[in-house]
Structure formats: C-alpha cells, structure tokens
C-alpha cells in the first residue's frame, strides 16, 4: 500500500534522503524530508496539528529541504521522527562517572575511585529518564497528540565501528567500542522501547551493526552532509551514508507493511 510519509529530523536525515534516491524506484510511497541540522532542530513548534519553524535558521531549512513553510500532520499517513539529538553516546554520558557493576571491567572493580557504582535498576531508570526528557520523545508524543495518524521514531545511527581503530579519549566511546558495547547498546535499546513503545521505534537492521553497538564502518564512509554534496569530515564517526539510509528506510517500510491498515 502506497503511503504518504513525512520524515523530520536533524542531520541524520541526510543519509535517509540519499538512500531514498537509491530505492525509490521500487516503492510507491510518497516521501518528504525535513532536515534541520544540529541544535536548530529544537527550533520547531508543533501547534494545532502543524509543525512550523520558530527561528530564521530552521525556517531556512524548511525551505531548503522540504520546499514548504510548514507541515500539516494530518496530511500524512506516517510521520517519522529521525534522530533529533537522542543518541547512544549522549544517553550514556552518565557512565563517565556512574556505572552499574556489570559495566565495570573486572580488573577495575576493586578500584573504588574509578566509577560510582549504581544498581542495574537505577541505571535503567537513568537511561529512561534521559529518553523521556529528550527532544525526540517530546516530538513524537506531541505529534501523536496533534493529529499525526501514525508516528515512528528512527534512532540516531550508532557510532561507526571505525572508533575501534582510533584511540578514544571519550570514556563513553571507549565503553561502546569495548567489551561492554553490546550490553550498553542493549540497555539503551530496551530503554527507548520502554519509553516510546516498541511499535514506534525503528532500529537499524542487525546486519549493519557490529556487536550490536556500532555501525559497520562501511556505512559511515562517504557520508554526505545535508546538502548532499559535501562529505562529513574524515573523523566523523556518527553520520552514515546513502547505503545505510536505504537499509533503514527499508526497515521503516517493512514495519509499515507489517502494520498496513493501521491508522
């Protein structure tokens, strides 16, 4: 069933837009993209069923990426919120000081000064709290309340597996790249599903991931900025390329096909 889909997100929407170019010939969906990079994604208002820019900068991106001044939510079968600042590394920033016992290396467990131990239950609560308060969660909640027929959330890409090849000064990146990576990614995933609802969240397909915690570096190489022309800097470990975008879009479409008729 062909659907009218609107994708709204930050810079990570670039990969999806480029991916759409690769696969659009095999789908009948009508897909629109609004990309507002960086912190400017905060400058949207959702009022009376319409998404509007609240700054000159975000207004510029409405024009540039969507070609419209606003988004009327009820004109779409599905609204897909992408990224919007919620990401694994940010959510795990608390681990710089507080960690559950299971995320402390056995060799460091006797070093009482390295991390403040928290229980697994509290750690899950910390993650959930961050997700509840995130812009992404606020947007999907508000859009669902204001007339969007269906809202999905596409998670921010996990960092590139290239982080394993470069020494990481950031302890959180180090955690994700290390032996505890799969465990933290799983906790993060569980927390997102618990807060947003399993049926609302689309994670990247398992085969683009490495250890469930990183994106295979094949998908971070050659990633382009939102303008679709300039590449991200070489040390960018967070933005993905068109191939990734195409695979994530297929996952979105597959989810929608599974729930066809749900409005």
């Amino acid at each position, binding site marked *: 069933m062909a659907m009218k889909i609107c994708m709204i997100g930050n810079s990570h929407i670039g990969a999806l837009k480029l991916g759409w170019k690769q696969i659009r010939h095999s789908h009948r969906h009508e897909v629109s993209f609004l990309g507002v990079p960086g912190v400017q994604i905060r400058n949207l208002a959702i009022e009376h069923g319409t998404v509007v820019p609240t700054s000159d900068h975000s207004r510029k991106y409405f024009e540039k990426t969507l070609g419209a001044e606003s988004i009327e939510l009820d004109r779409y079968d599905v609204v897909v919120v992408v990224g919007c600042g919620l990401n694994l590394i940010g959510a795990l*920033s*608390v681990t710089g*000081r*507080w960690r559950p*016992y*299971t995320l402390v290396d056995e060799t460091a*467990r006797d070093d*009482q*000064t390295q991390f*403040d*131990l*928290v*229980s*697994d*239950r*509290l750690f899950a*609560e*910390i993650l959930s*709290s*961050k997700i509840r*308060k995130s812009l992404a969660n606020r947007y999907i909640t508000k859009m669902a309340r204001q007339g969007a027929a269906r809202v999905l959330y596409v998670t921010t890409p996990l960092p590139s597996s290239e982080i394993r090849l470069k020494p990481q000064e950031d302890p959180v990146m180090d955690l994700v790249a290390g032996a505890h990576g799969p465990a933290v990614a799983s906790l993060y995933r569980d927390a997102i599903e618990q807060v947003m609802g399993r049926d609302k969240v689309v994670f990247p397909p398992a085969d683009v991931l490495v250890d469930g915690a990183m994106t295979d570096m094949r998908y971070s190489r050659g990633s382009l900025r939102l303008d679709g022309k300039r590449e991200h800097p070489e040390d960018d470990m967070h933005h993905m390329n068109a191939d990734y975008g195409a695979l994530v879009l297929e996952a979105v479409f597959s989810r929608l096909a599974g729930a066809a008729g749900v409005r």
Partner: protein
Amino acid sequence: MTSDRRAPTPYSNLPPSRYWRSAVAEMHPLDMEELYSPKFRIGLTDRIAVAGSCFAQHVGRALRSSGFSVLDQEPAPDGLAPQMAETFGYGIYSARYGNIYTARQLLQLLHDCVSGTVREADFWMRDGRYYDAHRPSVEPKGLESLAEAMAHRRQHLGKVKAMLETTDIFIFTLGLTETWQDIASGTVYPTCPGVIAGTFDAGKHAFKNFDAEEVLQDMIEARRLLKAINPGMRFLFTVSPVPLTATASGQNVLVATTYSKSVLRAVCGSLYGKFEDVDYFPSYEIIVSPSTRGFFYEPNMRSVNRHGVNHVMRTFLKSQEVEVAGKSKRANGQKGKAQKGKPRQEETRGDVVCEEALLEAFA
C-alpha cells in the same frame, strides 16, 4: 542565731528563661528564648556531615537551603529526577547510609569504614536479589548478585571515610534505643530482618533495647573513631522528637518511647558535659514541650509537621546568627565549600524516608 532576712539563693535573680513559669508556661512556644546557646559557631564554609534517624533528614535539608555546606559524598547521577534520587537514597544525608537510628549502628558503620570490612553476612535476600542489611532501603529492588552488593558496600564505606576525613561538623540525630541484632555476631540492623528484606529467624535474631550506659559508651567510642579519622571534627547532637512507630519491648509504645528518648537525651547531656567539641541542640525539647500541646505533630501524633521543622530550624539558625533567607550575618552570603550549582529541588519537599514507619504496615 539566723537573721529573718532572706539570704539570696542560687535561684534568686535568675533570668526569666530559668523559670518554668516565665520561660514556658507564660511564653508562647514560638517565642521561647535562650533555648540554645551554641558552644561553637558553625560557619557557612564549615563542611557539615549529617546522619541519624529520620528527623535528621529535615536538618540536612534546612541547612542546605540556608546556605550551609552540607557534604554530599555520594551525589545522585546526573539527570536523575530528585524524587527518584531520594528513592535510591541519594541526597538524603551526606552519604548513602540511609537512616542510622541507634548509636550502635553508627559505631558499626565507623568500624567498618576504618577497617574496610565487608562481610557476606551483611547482606539479606529477597526475591532473589541482594540487599545491604545496614541500609536496605537505598536499593529498593536490591542488587543482582552478592559480589555486586559487596562491591557497592565496599565503595560506600570508602566514600563515607572520605567524607569523614573532610568533615568539620558532624551532626547526628539520635533516634532509637531499640534494635534487632544478630545473636552470634552482635551486629545490629536499622530494620528488623524480614521487614524490607531478609528473613526473621527467632533463633538468630534478637531484640535489643540499649540502656543509657551502653549508648553513652557507643557514642564515646564513635567520637573517638571520628576524631582518629579527623582530629579537627566537632559534633552537634540532637535527639529525634519522633516517637517510636512500634515497640518490641513488651511495654506500651508511649512508655517505650519515653524510655528511649530519655536515654538518648541523657546521653547527649553526658556527652555535652564531657567534651568541649560536643554541642547539643534541643530540637527534641522544642517539639515535645508541653506548651506546644502537640501542635508540631501531624494528626498521627508522630510525624513532625513542617511548622515544627521550620520552627526548630529557625531557632537553630537564629542561635547560629544565620538569617533564614539564607544570608549570613557573619559570612556575607559566602557560599560553602560543598555548595555548588543550583539549590536542590528536594529542599522544597518535606517528606522523609523512614524505614521505621514501615512497621506500621505490620500493626
């Protein structure tokens, strides 16, 4: 032969605060004067550690909101909502030791801090999860494994020791004389085994009601240990005005409460008289004075209401020459060493975490 002119006695010409009629009976309880003359001043930059029974939570909050430097050696993780933080024992006292009801419990904590001792017997189980028997409420759902629970306790002891090493003023509210102990080891617990976690076993656990001599010796030993950790430390002791929720003494709970509070009050008096570095603040007297006719208590006649807490703290701050609004007459509003960032949200809330109140569920 003696003159019929009356010679002055030690009771002649005393100030009004020394006579019951003028100090209490004819004085509105909110206007009572000279209840407390501090032995030493507490500055806004003095690092204060707060511990004790439930009532001590009010003390910590009030001091923080008045600009005092109340230590928080185990701060809540970033981003955790204040209420959730409190549920996990954060921000209630200066470290996550939970309520310390008895002098023996304090002494045990200090011994363990100094020695770094963590025993397997220190942990209780419930529904397959492990609880620190010395602070069972700080992890409401317990911990996954014994190794994890022991690691948490080991770290906690290290944090408490670090806190004590930097403490200038140790404020401790004595709450109870009644406790439950492990018969074999003599270890006492803040809650009866089986209330929050663990299993009560009459063959292993016994009721203990400390007498004044025992409490005094425990407090003297606690002071000695604290001075060994930090020779410059000074002490402010108070007695909780909160009556017992329940007693296992076999006596009426009012009689048991009077015994308990009398013992604790007498011990504070002894400590005050013995040591220059020990002060006593009469929060107990302020709340339970007959002149208040119980109006500082909630309808349950047990919990102290916010008016009572506010009055206690106002009296304390006034005696310490600190304005209630948080500006010091002495320190020109200088922020304390431990005061960083914005005020904590929990300061605006009045609830206290009290395991003892759980006993009501068994009434």
